[in-house]
Each structure stands twice: as structure tokens, then as C-alpha cells.
């Protein structure tokens, strides 16, 4: 089962359509700019931001390098505190576990806190197939669920919708799921929030089963942490009798103290607040306070494959703050849906294909959904070098190599559809490795420069549809130098260095 949605086209195709959607562009531009400016202010308040960022990356790296140790420690402490720990190798197994646990309660309805992990595994759809209704309770998730839509942002899944669209969705759809929207609902955000409060309240107060994810799990104490704003998280975590938390294995941190780093990094990076309105922590079960039964489902679903890749491993540091989305010029224009999974933006472009073992055409297109401008890396509170991972994954697409797929070391073949490009890249490298040929080529180009059309055919069209091509000069720099300064003192030693020490071998022999 793939992390990407069924039938999604490769990124460039989806982006070509979405980029033309003026309303979407407007909504995203407005929202990302607002949050970007606010974040800058929130971060500027902490003089030690870069030290926090370093420590955040280091805590995560320490955890990842000893993940087996911390997972076993976590399991022991959650169990000791009265919880039950389950392990899920993949999405299918996680969904089976949750479905079984809900069935055992005899309930047909569950309330859900926004959780990336449960979106990743398609839990709502799996529960629906088992006849169980899952109600999303985060305001934005509710908007998405009511609108039969996909989320397009990690933090604000309905960021692609403006207030007017949200009002229309509420008016049309709320009644189908429960309490309808109030008469005469306007598009004022406060009124819309009030409508959601009323709609969801009866669900919360009667809920017997809650399902959540977690932002952090503390190995030493068995404590889970959920960071939220609206209070729907608190409702789902404390009112039901049974709580099931589905959490990726990379969400573990070693100690309670480590939260001092992340509870500073996360709110300022995500909602640009000093602290989010509500953070809940719980350790197993507590007598008469909160759920009687607590189940933790530890989810792999491609994470161990990602862990096995020494460059890709840093992806697992991610704390899902979405700062990289808010600063990404590609995300801002293409929108979240073009990324075809619950993980959009720069982090999605590296996380989705790794969790998916690059199995779909969309997966193979995602590492290219970036101009490598590096703004995401600069913003990332745990210093994930996203451009480095993007380029690394591009190698996997066009060169192949070895990778771990579902726990097995596998030789990966280059993705289909890159033959012409591969030939062109090799030819370019060969030419650049033979400056005499290069010089001849430049000479041809210079002589033919007046024949250059304003719009190019074939792949060149992608450039000339919107941009003029530069004029080829009459003389290359190389020729100018030779003409005015004579041949260089340090003439080329030879035309090719390939093979001198065996390192320049052709990739197809590998």
C-alpha cells in the first residue's frame, strides 16, 4: 500500500494545473506569507535558536542511531504504566490492529485527533470498510473531511480553502454528519469556529473511543505528548474510555528533559507562537482520569527502510512543524495536493518517496519538485538538509543503486523514462571532459546563432514557452582568451581524465 493517493499523476502534471488556479495561489500566498512573518518574530525572541536547533537535531540523531534500544525502553515503560503496545510493520497491519481494537469495544464511532500517521496509513478509509465511522475533530481536518477533500498542508490541512469556501462546505455538509451549521452562518472565522464547536460537541461528549497520533514519546517514562490548539485533542485524549494512539517509531525521544528542546522548537516553527494553546502529556493510564484502556500502535511503514539510508536517515528527525512548507516557493505555487500524499512540500518530497520505496511514478517525480533553493533547510528546526536528500533521491531515480526495501537490501534499477536524459547527461559530461570537442561545439553554435528560433521545439519548448533564450555570442570566452592572450600557459594535460584511477567508470558497468 502506497503512501501516495491512488491514481495521482506525477508532480509536474498536477502542478501544471494547480499553478494556474488563481484562487488557490491567492489563498496560499496570503496564508504562507502571514505565517512566515509571524514565525520570524517568534524565533527572533530566542537568542539561542541555533543552539536549540543543533540540540534538536542531535537528540533526534542519538535516538535514531539507537532506535532499537529506545523502542524497547519505551515499550517497557508504557507497559509498566498500564498501556498496551502493538507493533505494525506496515499500513495494512496498523489498520488491522486499530480496527480489531475498536471492534473489541463494541463501538461503531470514533473521534480522532489530527494525526499524520493515521492519514499516511489511510485509517479512516480502513475503518469505514469495517463499518466504523471516524470523525475528524481538528477544524481543518473537519473542513477536509466534510468537503470530501485531501489535506494540503501538514499543520493547516485546509489551507487551500478561504473563509468563503469553508462557510459553503459547512452549510452544505455539516447536516449529513451530525448537527447542521447554524442558520445564516457567515464567513467570519470566529463564527466558523463556533459552528465547528457546536457540531463536534455532541460527538466529544458521547465518544467512547478516541484515536490519536503523538508528537513525541518519551522512552524513559513512557509518556506521550500531543501538541495542539483547539482543545479537540484534549477532548479525544481524556473523555473516551479507550484511547488508541498510532505513532511512527521515529517519534521517540530518550528523556523527559529532551522535551525542553522540542517544546521550544515546535510551536515557534509551526504556528509561530511562543507556545501552542494546549499540550497534553500522558503516561499509560491514570485511575479515573482519562481513558481506562490505552493502546499504542508503533508504526514502521517504511521508516526502517529510510533509517537504513545514511543520507536519507535525517528525514526521520522531522517533527512535522511545516515550516518548510510555509517558506517553499514551489509549495506556494503548486499547492499541497500536487504532492499526492498527506506529506506535501519539501518534507513530503523527501519523505513520501522514501516511505514508498519510490514505487510509483509520482514518487519518482517528487525529488525533482524543488529548485534546490535551500530555504527549507534554513528554516528546518531540526536541520534536515532537504536539498541534500533531494539530490540523493534523484540519484536513486536516475542511477539506481542499492536501497533497503521492506527490510531487504535491494539493487534498484533506474526509473523508467529517463533514457534520453541519461544519454544527454552522459554526452554532456563526455563533451565537458573533452574541451577540444567543447570548443568546436561552441564554434558551431556561434556560427549558427542567427538561426536560433525564438521558440524551440521538443523539450526546449518547456523553456521557450515563457522565457526568451539568450543570444549565443559570436565568440566564446575560451576563443576570446586564446585570441587575445594566446594559448594558456597551463595547457590541458590531456583530453580526458576518465579512468585515470578507475573512479570515473561508467555507471552502467556498476
Amino acid at each position, binding site marked *: 500500500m502506497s503512501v501516495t493517493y491512488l491514481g495521482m499523476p506525477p508532480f*509536474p502534471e498536477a*502542478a*501544471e494545473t494547480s*499553478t*494556474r488556479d488563481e484562487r488557490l*495561489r491567492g489563498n496560499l500566498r496570503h496564508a504562507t506569507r502571514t505565517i512566515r512573518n509571524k514565525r520570524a518574530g517568534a524565533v527572533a525572541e530566542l537568542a539561542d535558536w541555533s543552539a536549540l536547533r543543533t540540540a534538536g537535531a542531535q537528540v533526534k540523531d542519538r535516538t535514531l542511531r539507537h532506535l532499537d534500544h529506545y523502542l524497547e525502553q519505551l515499550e517497557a515503560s508504557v507497559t509498566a504504566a498500564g498501556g498496551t503496545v502493538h507493533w505494525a510493520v506496515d499500513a495494512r497491519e496498523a489498520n488491522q490492529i486499530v480496527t480489531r481494537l475498536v471492534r473489541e469495544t463494541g463501538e461503531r464511532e470514533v473521534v480522532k485527533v489530527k494525526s499524520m500517521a493515521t492519514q499516511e496509513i489511510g485509517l479512516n478509509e480502513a475503518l469505514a470498510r469495517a463499518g466504523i465511522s471516524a470523525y475528524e475533530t481538528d477544524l481543518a481536518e473537519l473542513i477536509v473531511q466534510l468537503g470530501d477533500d485531501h489535506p494540503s498542508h501538514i499543520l493547516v490541512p485546509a489551507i487551500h480553502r478561504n473563509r468563503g469556501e469553508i462557510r459553503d462546505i459547512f452549510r452544505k455538509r455539516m447536516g449529513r454528519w451530525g448537527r447542521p451549521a447554524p442558520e445564516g452562518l457567515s464567513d467570519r472565522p470566529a463564527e466558523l469556529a463556533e459552528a465547528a464547536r457546536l457540531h463536534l460537541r455532541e460527538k466529544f461528549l458521547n465518544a467512547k473511543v478516541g484515536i490519536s497520533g503523538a508528537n513525541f514519546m518519551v522512552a524513559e517514562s513512557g509518556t506521550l505528548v500531543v501538541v495542539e490548539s483547539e482543545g479537540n485533542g484534549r477532548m479525544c485524549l481524556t473523555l473516551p474510555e479507550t484511547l488508541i494512539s498510532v505513532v511512527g517509531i521515529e517519534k521517540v525521544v530518550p528523556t523527559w528533559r529532551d522535551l525542553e528542546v522540542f517544546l521550544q522548537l515546535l510551536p515557534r516553527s509551526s504556528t509561530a507562537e511562543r507556545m501552542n494553546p494546549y499540550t497534553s502529556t500522558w503516561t499509560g493510564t491514570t485511575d479515573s482520569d482519562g481513558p481506562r484502556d490505552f493502546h499504542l500502535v508503533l508504526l514502521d511503514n517504511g521508516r526502517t527502510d529510510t533509517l537504513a539510508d545514511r543520507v536519507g536517515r535525517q528525514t526521520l528527525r522531522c517533527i512535522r512543524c511545516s515550516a518548510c512548507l510555509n517558506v517553499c*516557493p*514551489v509549495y506556494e*505555487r*503548486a499547492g499541497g495536493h500536487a504532492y499526492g500524499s498527506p506529506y506535501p512540500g519539501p518534507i513530503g518530497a523527501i519523505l513520501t518517496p522514501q516511505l514508498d520505496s519510490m514505487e510509483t511514478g509520482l514518487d519518482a517525480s517528487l525529488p*525533482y*519538485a*524543488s*529548485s*534546490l*533553493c*535551500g*530555504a527549507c*533547510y*534554513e528554516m528546518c528546526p531540526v536541520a534536515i538538509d532537504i536539498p541534500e536528500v533531494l*539530490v540523493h533521491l*534523484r*540519484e*536513486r*531515480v536516475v*542511477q539506481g543503486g542499492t536501497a533497503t526495501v521492506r527490510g531487504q537490501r535491494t539493487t534498484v534499477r533506474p526509473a523508467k523514462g529517463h533514457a534520453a536524459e541519461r544519454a544527454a*547527461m552522459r554526452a*554532456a*559530461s563526455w563533451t*565537458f*571532459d573533452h*574541451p577540444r570537442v*567543447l570548443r568546436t561545439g561552441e564554434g558551431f553554435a556561434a556560427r549558427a546563432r542567427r538561426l536560433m528560433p525564438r521558440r524551440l521545439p521538443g*523539450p526546449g519548448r*518547456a*523553456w521557450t*514557452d*515563457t*522565457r*526568451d*533564450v*539568450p543570444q*549565443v*555570442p559570436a565568440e*566564446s*570566452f*575560451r576563443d576570446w*582568451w586564446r585570441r587575445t592572450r594566446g594559448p*594558456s*600557459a*597551463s595547457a*590541458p594535460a590531456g583530453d580526458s*581524465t576518465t579512468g*585515470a584511477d*578507475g*573512479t*570515473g*567508470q*561508467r*555507471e552502467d558497468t556498476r
Partner: protein
Amino acid sequence: MRVALFVTCVNDALYPRTGQAVVTLLERLGVRVDFPEAQSCCGQPQFNTGYRHATEPLVHRYAAAFEGYDHIVVPSGSCAAMVRENYPRIGAKAAAEGRGGVLSAVAERMVPRTYELTEFLVDVLGVTDVGAYYPHTVTYHPTCHGLRMLGLGERPRMLLEQVKGLELRELEGAEECCGFGGTFAVKNAAVSSAMGADKARHIEESGAESVCTVDNSCLMHIGGTLSRAGSRVRPVHLAEILASTEESPL
């Protein structure tokens, strides 16, 4: 001090005037500069598209061409960043693939000698006033790899501020990518063009006569977008502004 110019393939083939400007400028500052003809391309297009193995011969070529020089001056933030940031990665990966440490050694030798033009001027020569004259309004777009990978910071602005007659205009959203991104410009043409259009609009709104960067590849995209839109703003590489004088203006 032996100084070599790494002109870069884009400048060699399409923007020779930038290379000529670097030579003029450095000679005016009393620096003798060589152009080792064995040089070609840093390999960035291949590397950034995922063809790392096809990049390796070009790493060797770079090293062979510039062996023996103390300073290699590159009028491109992006190509300088390729050498400084990615050559060590190419070396490390080759080693991890069991092909020894030769490429790593090459990278280690070349990285500390490779300077983007403004770094060489400000850090090595210690000048910000290069005696240039350019009586125009200019807006400066800090290109991404220079800004974020090399950390050029204020260097380009410091140089521009000392140019006689030049008036700097603020650029809205200056630090946002122009949308070039190498093969990104054609692989994701729609997004690239949308980014380019926004950049071009901000440049127009700055009211400047020229837009200046330290990267001709980005400027090719920006200039192509501006020109298609019928704009009269002139794209110009920083080196050409710095080379311009009252006696021989650009």
C-alpha cells in the same frame, strides 16, 4: 599568488562578457589571472539531476585544470557552491561505494582554494571599492546558492554600494528563489515560470534599470522572463558592473 579564473561553462558559451569583465577587474586590481584551458564544467547540472557518477570525471578535470593555483575565482555562486559543498559529498559517496579515497582527496585539495568572485574580492583582496562606475539604478537579487550555501551575506551589496553613480533599489522578496533551479526550469516548467514571473514583477516594481546577480544561469531565466514580458530592465552580472569604469563604461 597564483590566481586562476574558473569561468564556468555557462559563461564560457553564453556570457563571455562576464568572464572578460572578471579578467579586466582583477587586472585593474593588480591581480594576474590565468585561464587554464583544460577547465570545462563543474558538473552541477549532472549532479543536481542525480547523475553523480557522470559528474566524477568533471571533478577530476577541475582538479587537473586548477592544480597548482592558490586561488580559483568563480563568477558564479552556484558553481562555487557545487565545488565547495558537493565535491566532498561526491568523494565521500565514492568511498562508501568502495572506490577508495581519491575523489575525497581531490575535493579536499580544491575546496579551500575555490572562491566565488565577491568572496575573493572582499575576503582575499580586502577591497570593497574597486573603482567602478555605473551610473544606473540597480536592484540586486541574491541567488540561492550564493546566499544559502556559500553564505555570501552582505559582500555583493558592499561592493555595489561603493560603485560610483550606482543607486541601489530594494527588491521585494529578494531572498526568494527566481525559479531557475537548473533542470527544474524545464522539468517543472509551470512552477518555474510562475516563480520567474513573480520575481520579474518584483524587479519591475523596484523601478531599477538593471537587475544584478552573481549567477548568469539565474540571470538567464530572469532575463528571459523579463524580455518575454517586454520589460526594459537589463539583466547584468555583478562582475560586469564592477568592471565598468568612467573610461570604459558598460
